[in-house]
């Protein structure tokens, strides 16, 4: 696939431009948080009790929270947490899920049976419930939240990767490599993996949004990131008690979550179009 084509297709779809721009903006915000945030110290947790629960104003565009901290600054810093958590969860889950799925699909037989049994056990639980259980067991904290989410998540990728591996391993170029005596592991890495990735990447892109949402949910329930770390889920959780009188407190971090999740979904759709040759042809 040529690069200009990819770019052309991405740019054809207005919504995908929106998604892509939001995510690029988020990444820039996360990287430059310390420069962009008006009150970096408050963002990191320093209380400012003089200005508690101020409504949005020129100095505090998103208002302040119950400890008087600038919500805008905390939302900006929260992008860091969210992206790091979302990215780590998806990456970790991909690593486990895709390896197991490829092995199961490519080798088949008993290996497949065992891996899929284990996968099925995990899939029997509703994902968030499982993550909750694991997070409770592991204890609070960002790292444990990431682990818990990744562990509840990988089986989905195993399924997807297994299905792809089963179909890719039937392609003649895989058989041709077998006929040349290329070892199974090399075939898996050079041929099966790259040609299985497309739908997995689409899924993973969309899942970034969901991972951020679920991480927020864990924080909301007090199981994830701990105060005073700036985190959108945590902010919504703390802010919910103030919602009636101080609406800005939970609303701005909530909005941030919503926009991010949506952006990843839009981008996922666009990536699907770029990758799926059938959709590509339809665009003609």
């Amino acid at each position, binding site marked *: 696939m040529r690069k200009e*084509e990819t770019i052309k*297709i991405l740019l*054809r779809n207005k919504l995908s431009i929106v998604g892509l721009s939001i995510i690029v903006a988020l990444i820039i915000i996360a990287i430059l948080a310390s420069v962009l945030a008006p009150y970096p110290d408050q963002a990191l947790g320093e209380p400012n009790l003089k200005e508690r629960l101020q409504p949005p104003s020129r100095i505090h565009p998103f208002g302040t929270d119950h400890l008087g901290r600038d919500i805008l600054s905390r939302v900006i810093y929260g992008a860091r947490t969210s992206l790091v958590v979302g990215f780590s969860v998806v990456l970790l889950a991909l690593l486990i899920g895709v390896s197991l799925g490829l092995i199961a699909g490519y080798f088949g037989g008993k290996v497949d049976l065992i891996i899929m049994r284990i996968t099925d056990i995990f899939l029997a639980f509703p994902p968030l419930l499982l993550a909750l259980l694991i997070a409770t067991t592991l204890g609070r904290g960002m790292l444990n939240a990431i682990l818990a989410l990744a562990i509840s998540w990988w089986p989905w990728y195993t399924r997807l990767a297994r299905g792809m591996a089963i179909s890719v391993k039937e392609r003649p170029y895989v058989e041709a490599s077998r006929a040349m005596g290329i070892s199974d592991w090399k075939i898996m890495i050079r041929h099966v993996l790259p040609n299985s990735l497309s739908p997995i990447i689409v899924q993973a892109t969309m899942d970034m949004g969901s991972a951020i949402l679920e991480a927020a949910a864990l924080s909301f329930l007090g199981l994830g990131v701990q105060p005073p770390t700036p985190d959108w889920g945590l902010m919504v959780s703390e802010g919910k008690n103030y919602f009636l009188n101080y609406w800005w407190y939970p609303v701005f971090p909530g909005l941030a979550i919503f926009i991010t999740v949506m952006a990843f979904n839009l981008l996922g759709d666009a990536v699907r179009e770029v990758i799926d040759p059938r959709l590509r042809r339809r*665009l*003609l």
Partner: protein
Amino acid sequence: MKKLLEIHDLYINFKTLWGVAKVLNGVSFDIKEGEIFGLVGETGCGKSVTALSILRLLPPNAEISGKILFKGKNLLEKSEEDMRKIRGKEISIIFQDPMTSLNPLFKVRDQMLDIIELHEGLSREEAEKHAEKLLKAVGLSDPERILNSYPHELSGGMRQRIMIAMALSSNPFLLIADEPTTALDVTIQKQILELILDLRNRYNFSVLLITHDLGVVAEVCDRVGVMYAGNIVEIAPTEELFENPLHPYTQGLLSVVPDPRTKKPLKPLKGSVPSLLNPPSGCRFHPRCIYAKDICKRAKPELHEHSPGHFVACHLYGGGNCD
């Protein structure tokens, strides 16, 4: 014989992301009543596009100019409403893959009767009788069982016979068969080709038979048009074309078809089919032609009658818009 279909100077462009594909580049030919006209050419030369343009079934990104006269009336000027009355009734089409043309979810009965009722205005019972008669006519001896089957329960040959039966249900004047046997085995192909010949002799409709197989052409067609990269380069009665091919592409094509009766050497054409996004100037065949002259790069040769009934578009034979 009267001309049933006349195509004059048909140009079709497709707008695509990567530019404009100039797919048909001034196609002209005609089909007489009761005639089997073969259209041969290699992948992508525009055979299917020609077929679809006759039925006005091209996708919306197509730009069409030229004339398609059916019984003297220009189909390109008809309303969509009028076209719907013509499609499947006066002009029918069957495609290469009989599996995808039948809906796998419905029994053959439902699909056949729907079509027959739609076109003939018959009651369900009359339609059923008609369907059974048609199935017998295409050589399916047990119509009752066929009607009660789902498509996947039938072989490729049977499905193609059903498609033919459906296409013929309204006594069309013209049957367009787009590679009707390409997906089938040779023994089944022979049966289907014989069936088309036999039905034509009985009902005297015309056939536009699209194929890439010169053997098929030799077997069943009365006249042939040879297509190359969006142009008809030669038209002649079948025997004349095989005996006395004029266009260098036709000559090349005939010398690369392996003949099962003898082991003759193959003299391959050099190169491959050009991209239609950026087709060669002048005669689109010139980069592969061993006789190409200067003029071939500059001017498009027009199709002209070289000897009675034998048309060719090539500068070697003069005529056309040669300077």
